[in-house]
C-alpha cells in the first residue's frame, strides 16, 4: 500500500529536515568559526537529503505537494521525525552528543536502505551515506574531545548523554509501517540496527571517558506524530515566513 511508503518516507525526510534546522540555528553562534562552517555544511547536506526524501513522498502522495509544501505547511502533529532530532540545541555538548547518536544511527540505517528494493530509496540512501560518513567522523571526534577534555566539557558531555539517552530507544522500535516496509524489501527492521549501534556507541563513549546510562524507560511516539513540545517552537520559527506570505519568492 502506498500509504505506508509515504509514511516511511516522511519519517526519513522529517528526521533529516528537523536535524538540519537544528544545526542551521548554530550558524553565527558556534564556539569557533570553523564550527560555524562545519555545522552549516552538515545542515546543508541534511537539508538536501530531506528534500530528496520529501520530493519522493510528495510524488507518492499525489496531492500536488512538493518538498517545500510538506516542510512548511504541516504542523508538528503531522511531522514524523524521531524525537531525538527535535531535542533543543542546548549547549555545544548537547548538540554534539545528539548529532553523534543520530549520525551513528543514520550510517547504519542508510547502509541498509542502500539495498532497498525501491530503487529511488536505494539511490537517495547511497548518496546520503557518503555525506553521513563525514558527519559521523566529525561528531565522534568532538564527542571524544569534549568527554576526554576539561572538567567542564566532560561534565557537560556526560549530562548531555544522560539527558538524551531516553530518546535513543525510539531509533530501534518498529511499528506496523516498518513491518510492512520490511516485508516488501523496501525498509529496514529498526531493531536490527540496535546491536551494531550500541557496540559503536559504547566504544566511543568509553574512549571519551563517558559513562553509558543504565537502561530505563525509552520515550517514543515521534514516528507516529506525538512530539515533545520542543518541535512546535522550532517549526514556528522555521515556517513563519512561508505561512505569513504564502508563495513568496526570493
Amino acid at each position, binding site marked *: 500500500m502506498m500509504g505506508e511508503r509515504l509514511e516511511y518516507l516522511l519519517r526519513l525526510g522529517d528526521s533529516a529536515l528537523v536535524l538540519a534546522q537544528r544545526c542551521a540555528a548554530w550558524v553565527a553562534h558556534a564556539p569557533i568559526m*570553523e564550527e560555524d*562552517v562545519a555545522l552549516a555544511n552538515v545542515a*546543508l*547536506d541534511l537539508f*538536501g537529503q530531506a*528534500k530528496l526524501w520529501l520530493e519522493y513522498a510528495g510524488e507518492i502522495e499525489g496531492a500536488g505537494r512538493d518538498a517545500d509544501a510538506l516542510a512548511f505547511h504541516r504542523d508538528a502533529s503531522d511531522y514524523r521525525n524521531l524525537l531525538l532530532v527535535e531535542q533543543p540545541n542546548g549547549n555545544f555538548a548537547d548538540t554534539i552528543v545528539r548529532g553523534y547518536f543520530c549520525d551513528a544511527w543514520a550510517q547504519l540505517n542508510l547502509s541498509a536502505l542502500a539495498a532497498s528494493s525501491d530503487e529511488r530509496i536505494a539511490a537517495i540512501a547511497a548518496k546520503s551515506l*557518503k555525506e553521513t560518513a563525514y558527519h559521523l567522523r*566529525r561528531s565522534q571526534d568532538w564527542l571524544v574531545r569534549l568527554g576526554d577534555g576539561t572538567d567542564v566539557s566532560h561534565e557537560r558531555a556526560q549530562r548531555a548523554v544522560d539527558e538524551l539517552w531516553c530518546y535513543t530507544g525510539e531509533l530501534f522500535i518498529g511499528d506496523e509501517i516498518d513491518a510492512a516496509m520490511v516485508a516488501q524489501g523496501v525498509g529496514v527492521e529498526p531493531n536490527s540496527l540496535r546491536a551494531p549501534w550500541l557496540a559503536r556507541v559504547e566504544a566511543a563513549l568509553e574512549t571519551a571517558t563517558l559513562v553509558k546510562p543504565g537502561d530505563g524507560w525509552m520515550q517514543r511516539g515521534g514516528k507516529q506524530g506525538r512530539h515533545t513540545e520542543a518541535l512546535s517552537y522550532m517549526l514556528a520559527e522555521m515556517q513563519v515566513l512561508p505561512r505569513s506570505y504564502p508563495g513568496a519568492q526570493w
Partner: protein
Amino acid sequence: MVARAWEWLDEVPDPELPSVTITDLGIVREIREDAGALVVALTPTYSGCPATAVIEADVTRALHEHGVERVRIERRLAPAWTTDWITPRGRERLHEHGIVPPGATLADGPLVTVLIRCPRCASTKTSEISRFGSTPCKALYRCDDCREPFDYVKPH
C-alpha cells in the same frame, strides 16, 4: 547534435568552482535526443549543494544560446557522484587555481587520510584547519612551511 552539445557544455563553468567546467567535474552523465528534445542527465555533487539548480539553469541557457530549442534536464541520483569522476584536465585546472584535487576514494570509504601537497610550494607538511570548507565539496588546509591556506576537494 549530441557530440556538439558535449562541446558546448564543456564550456559551462561550475558556479562554485569556476576554474573548472561541469564536464571536468563529471556532473554531465549523458546527453541524448528524445522526441525532438535534447535530454541532459546531470548528477548532483552533494545532496544540498546550492549549485545544483544554478547548473541546471546554466545548461539550459547554454543550449538555448546555441539554438537548441527544447531542452530537458534529468536529475540522476544513481550511481552517486564521486570525485573519481573529475577528469585529468579538471584536476589540472583545480591545481592551477590553487585548489588541491581530491585523493582517490578507496574501498574503506572517503575517510582515508592521504598526503596533501601545498599547491603553492609543494610541501607535504600541511595541516587540516577544518574538514568543512567554503563549499560542501571542500576542506580547508594550511601549509606549515609557506603558511598559505588553501582548499582541498574532499574525496567523495
